[in-house]
């Protein structure tokens, strides 16, 4: 955090007037803690390694918002950030760091930075952020596959269902189809009309479905972003998903319409109208 910004968020006179002016150190807290403890930027709080024990008075310099990281969504802990030296002093374990992040300059490949660090010193193991992300998201990838399996089952089941519905709906029109054939409309004309109608219905249906999906995902996001206080999007409707849905529905409509129409035009017109 730039010093200028730190200075800006440190208003008011020093706490101790007579001693050497002690400027309180600054910390940041996350939104969740701010909400739970009713804290705001500029508030002074006691920061101690143990509850009720001695500690430092610190100023809250900023309130941070959590990133959209699925691995953090379900954690209910609070997050406080302080300067490294301050943390070391408070914890009484100077010079011990579990892990830290190194930002590479723009245009430098993270892999080469990691390799350079690994080569520079023993006792380090550097990973590019992407590798860490992959490592920590293994669970989500399993969940994702599970979702995909559910999606495929749903699509196959509803495709069969829709095919049957189309067959039934078209079959309901067999008297009309029979009448058209009696009047001299060719098989091809009847099939074309049925397929065209099925295609239109499936286009309208998929547009409605995409709209419904978008509304549902907005509702899900609104609800769970509130519950978990995260900007993470839990459900998304991407253009790719919409394109897939429309293509699938149109394909299904064309195939089921064609099959249904073929079933009808193969029968004798007199049989279709039931005499």
């Amino acid at each position, binding site marked *: 955090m730039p010093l200028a910004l730190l200075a800006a968020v440190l208003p008011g006179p020093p706490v101790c007037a007579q001693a050497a002016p002690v400027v309180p150190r600054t910390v940041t807290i996350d939104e969740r803690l701010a909400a739970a403890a009713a804290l705001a930027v500029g508030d002074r709080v006691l920061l101690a390694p143990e509850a009720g024990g001695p500690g430092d008075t610190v100023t809250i310099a900023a309130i941070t918002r959590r990133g959209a990281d699925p691995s953090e969504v379900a954690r209910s802990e609070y997050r406080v950030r302080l300067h490294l030296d301050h943390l070391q002093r408070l914890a009484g374990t100077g010079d011990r760091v579990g892990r830290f992040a190194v930002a590479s300059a723009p245009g430098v490949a993270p892999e080469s930075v990691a390799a350079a660090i690994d080569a520079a010193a023993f006792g380090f193991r550097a990973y590019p952020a992407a590798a860490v992300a992959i490592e920590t998201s293994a669970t989500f990838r399993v969940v994702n596959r599970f979702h995909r399996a559910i999606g495929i089952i749903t699509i196959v089941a509803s495709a069969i269902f829709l095919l049957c519905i189309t067959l039934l709906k078209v079959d309901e029109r067999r*008297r*009309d189809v029979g*009448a*058209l*054939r*009696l*009047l*001299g*409309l*060719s*098989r091809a*004309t009847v099939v074309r009309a049925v397929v065209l109608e099925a295609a239109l219905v499936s286009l309208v249906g998929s547009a409605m479905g995409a709209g419904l999906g978008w509304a549902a995902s907005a509702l899900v996001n609104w609800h769970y972003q509130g519950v978990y206080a995260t900007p993470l999007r839990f459900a998304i409707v991407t253009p790719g998903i919409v394109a897939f849905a429309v293509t699938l529905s149109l394909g299904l409509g064309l195939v089921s319409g064609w099959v249904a129409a073929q079933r009808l035009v193969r029968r004798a*017109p*007199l049989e279709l*109208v039931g*005499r």
Partner: protein
Amino acid sequence: MTLVLSARDVRRDYPVAGTPVHAVRGISLDVHAGEWVAIVGPSGCGKSTLLNLLGAIDRPSAGSITIAGRDVARLGDAEATRFRLTGVGFVFQRFYLMPTLTAAENVELPMAEAKVPRVEREARARELLGYVGLAGRADHRPFQLSGGEQQRVAIARALANRPALLLADEPTGELDARTGTEVIALLDRLNRDGTTIVTVTHDEELAQAARRVVHVRDGAIVDDVVRRPLPPAAPADGAARR
């Protein structure tokens, strides 16, 4: 006089397991341009079967049927379909109008299939609906029309592609006496204006209106009475049609 229809020894057997049904047993019939023939007979005697054969809806087991010079009995499915579209007009007992189309669109339907240009078929639909007395109902859908009005739309539709012959199976069968009379009057006017008509009916009033009555029993013609001969100045062009 021009021969519009000529059927020779037409038979239709239904291959029912056990004893096959001989619905039509050797019927021969000639119909000339401008005639109106009513085929009457008891239920089940084969009237509808015969009319379906004449209209290329069904194919005879034996015999020949020539309509306007075409051998209808030997047509393949696609040719028979085409013949139903342009060669004959069919009026059904149950109208068979498309419920989602307006009266005008119903009349235009066979013309659209026959690739008649839009402007032409709209004009013809208007003309035909005017002729059957439904000019003001062109934009109404079947459910907004009475049974008699629906049947008149169906008659207009049957005439759309200027067929050589109008076939009607019990056209008054679903109608009450008054609307039935309207339909009979329309058929009479059509016939006087030159349309050749063959109807099948139980309706005594309809049979009385026809020029000629053919009695059928057990699949064969038992009587053939000309009640009103064609006027001497019969239409000269033969393809007398509205």
